[in-house]
């Protein structure tokens, strides 16, 4: 019945027209695999300064190989994923795309990213295992090469911590005590805020606590959001909001910018890219911030999560997958390329060797007071816990925003617990709706 009924009315005409374009594009995949060049590739990326890095390729190695790459600047976020999926549907996806790690399973599941394991032999050792695993999804295939990593860290106002005689927290318990102590000493100030609009930060904190939100069991997905590790994080932040010792309003609002700039909030749990954000958010406090490792659940541990980070993949629509793979390998592992990425785009590279190159000798300008900023960052990056992404992270993230916004508003710790369950239910329901098998 389904197939017969599909062809009906005028809809059939439209379907036929659209289908034809898709089919035509599918057939053109396996053309030029013998040689990499000559080829002209398009690359969708949102990294600032990427055109300059690509220029180095086009004038140097790319010229020799006759592989020319053109960057098309994109906006970051969920909408780029939709844009790629739509382009792929029409068979017109670019040869190369930048993809945040958590979107890789979605893109693979939609058959957008090609397996380039045959073309990128030997690069695995250049990355941490926990990073590499996000682009292979634990299989033998390689769907993308890591570009940047974003380990979580603790940023604080060094001067105000001194003024209020606060210790830099090493555990989350101390973090809570610091929040209380500050509230006592300066009732109009907050240590930080719980932001319900930043699903990625919460996911990173859960990752640190050992949560694995998506795993596979045979042929089915297992969703582990409603698990002790996530609840530990949710209870912790819910408790602080309930006690009213931290703020509960979202980050990245004019109000939050002002709070950071005026010292109303004196700390920020963020990632290694924070030095790129703080100058615009809190321009008046340059040189007053310092970075420390993320507080730990158990004293003496060293683990962190991540908030963002991205990879670059070759699409199945590309007519020149070999050439594209060659470029991706150069872009993310070649010392000159990675140094340029750091200098032009301010990104923190995933390739471990690149983290200690000359580009990172000096601390970021905003953190001129902390000379060993990048040495510490490198140490912290090594302690990143494994992450476990699935094919509908976007659904979980949206559910998180709605459920945790309501919880944060209520200021009730129990609501945070309930919100974790809601996110789990929404995520499982969506997987089932799409036809995935879901392990109980």
């Amino acid at each position: 019945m389904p197939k017969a009924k599909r062809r009906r009315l005028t809809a059939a005409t439209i379907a036929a027209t659209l289908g034809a374009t898709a089919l035509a594009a599918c057939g053109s995949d396996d053309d030029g695999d013998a040689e990499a060049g000559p080829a002209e590739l398009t690359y969708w990326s949102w990294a600032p300064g990427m055109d300059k890095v690509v220029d180095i390729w086009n004038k140097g190695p790319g010229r020799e190989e006759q592989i020319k790459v053109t960057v098309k600047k994109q906006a970051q976020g969920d909408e780029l994923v939709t844009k790629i999926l739509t382009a792929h549907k029409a068979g017109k996806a670019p040869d190369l795309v930048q993809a945040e790690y958590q979107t890789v399973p979605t893109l693979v599941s939609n058959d957008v990213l090609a397996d380039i394991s045959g073309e990128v032999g030997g690069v695995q050792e250049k990355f941490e295992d926990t990073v590499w695993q996000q682009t292979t999804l634990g299989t033998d295939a390689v769907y993308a090469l890591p570009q940047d990593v974003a380990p979580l860290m603790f940023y604080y106002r060094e001067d105000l911590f001194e003024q209020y005689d606060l210790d830099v927290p090493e555990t989350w318990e101390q973090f809570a005590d610091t929040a209380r102590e500050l509230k006592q000493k300066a009732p109009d100030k907050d240590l930080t805020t719980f932001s319900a609009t930043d699903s990625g930060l919460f996911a990173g904190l859960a990752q640190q606590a050992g949560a694995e939100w998506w795993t596979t069991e045979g042929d089915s997905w297992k969703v582990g959001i409603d698990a002790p590790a996530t609840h530990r994080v949710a209870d912790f932040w819910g408790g602080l909001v309930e006690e009213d010792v931290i703020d509960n309003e979202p980050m990245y609002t004019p109000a939050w910018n002002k709070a950071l700039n005026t010292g109303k909030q004196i700390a920020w749990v963020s990632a290694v890219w924070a030095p790129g954000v703080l100058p615009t958010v809190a321009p008046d406090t340059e040189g007053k911030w310092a970075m420390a490792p993320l507080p730990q659940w158990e004293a003496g541990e060293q683990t962190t999560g991540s908030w963002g980070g991205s990879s670059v993949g070759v699409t199945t629509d590309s007519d020149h997958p070999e050439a594209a793979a060659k470029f991706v390998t150069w872009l993310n592992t070649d010392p000159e390329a990675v140094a340029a990425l750091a200098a032009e785009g301010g990104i923190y590279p995933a390739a471990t060797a690149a983290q200690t190159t000359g580009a990172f000798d000096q601390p970021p300008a905003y953190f001129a007071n902390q000379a060993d900023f990048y040495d510490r960052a490198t140490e912290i990056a090594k302690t990143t816990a494994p992450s476990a992404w699935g094919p509908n992270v976007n659904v979980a993230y949206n559910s998180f925003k709605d459920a945790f916004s309501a919880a944060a508003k209520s200021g009730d710790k129990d609501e945070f617990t309930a919100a974790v369950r809601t996110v789990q239910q929404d995520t499982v329901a969506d997987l089932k709706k799409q036809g995935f098998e879901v392990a109980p």
Partner: protein
Amino acid sequence: MRPARRPAYGVKGAPYAFLVPAALLFALFFALPIGYAAWLSLHRVEVKGLGLGSGAREEVWAGLSNYTDALTDAELLHGALRVLGYGAIVVPVMLGLALTFALMLDHERVRFAPATRLAIFLPYAIPGVVAALLWGFLYLPEVSPLHYGLDRAGLPQPDLLDGGSLYLALSNIAVWGGTGFNMIVIYTALRAIPAEVHEAAKLDGCTPLQTALRIKVPMVAPALVLTFFFSIIATLQVFNEPTTLMPLTNGISTTWSPLMKVHRDAFAENDIYSASATAVVIAFVTLTLSFGFLRTVNRRTRQEEAAR
């Protein structure tokens, strides 16, 4: 050549020839996209196994399941109720203000009419997103001069982006932006009233207020109906303001209004199938409500005419 036959042929075919461009544009940019949306809404994606790699996803016939999902979705219903609540504030306040301003501007002894008219109309020229951002700044306690003033005066500072006051905050943006446009429509209708009607009213001893309420308002009723009709449609499609304010507050969810849910499903969750179904439902409800209103109004006018 037989020139005699050609005109005959041309005259017969002319209407169709003239229709072709319009029909073509209508088909390409209206009927076809709607048809495609309807087609999408009857399908869904079926994943096999882990859903990784090529051929793991297939588009299959879904029947009406997307529609039953949309119609039984509690969140969509709540969104619709929120929008109704919002509309119950926006439409009467906006049209009330627009009518009042129009009547005041139409008064013969009003001064600075052109400048005032422009001042009231100007917010309409500001894009909805910009207006929402602008007001968002004024609503956020930490950066708002309003809250600063209240704080200085020792008065309580309300959270405008939460609970019941959120409706007022959102309505305020719509009223601020929409009043001017509606005022111009009503005002234009007022100017079209023949001068002798005014004179007759004055001779009969009507006060300006009586003229306004008993003569002008009934005579611009068609313009009021039109603005009401437009306002209902605009209200049901509210999207810009809540979407822009959403990241600023915990009070607005990603599915606050039905259109926001469509946008989220299609562009954040990549489920264009159920988004299409929801969009079709919204279009249907909007059409029913707006045309239902028009029919009721028309029927009443006809009855009144018959009664006379």
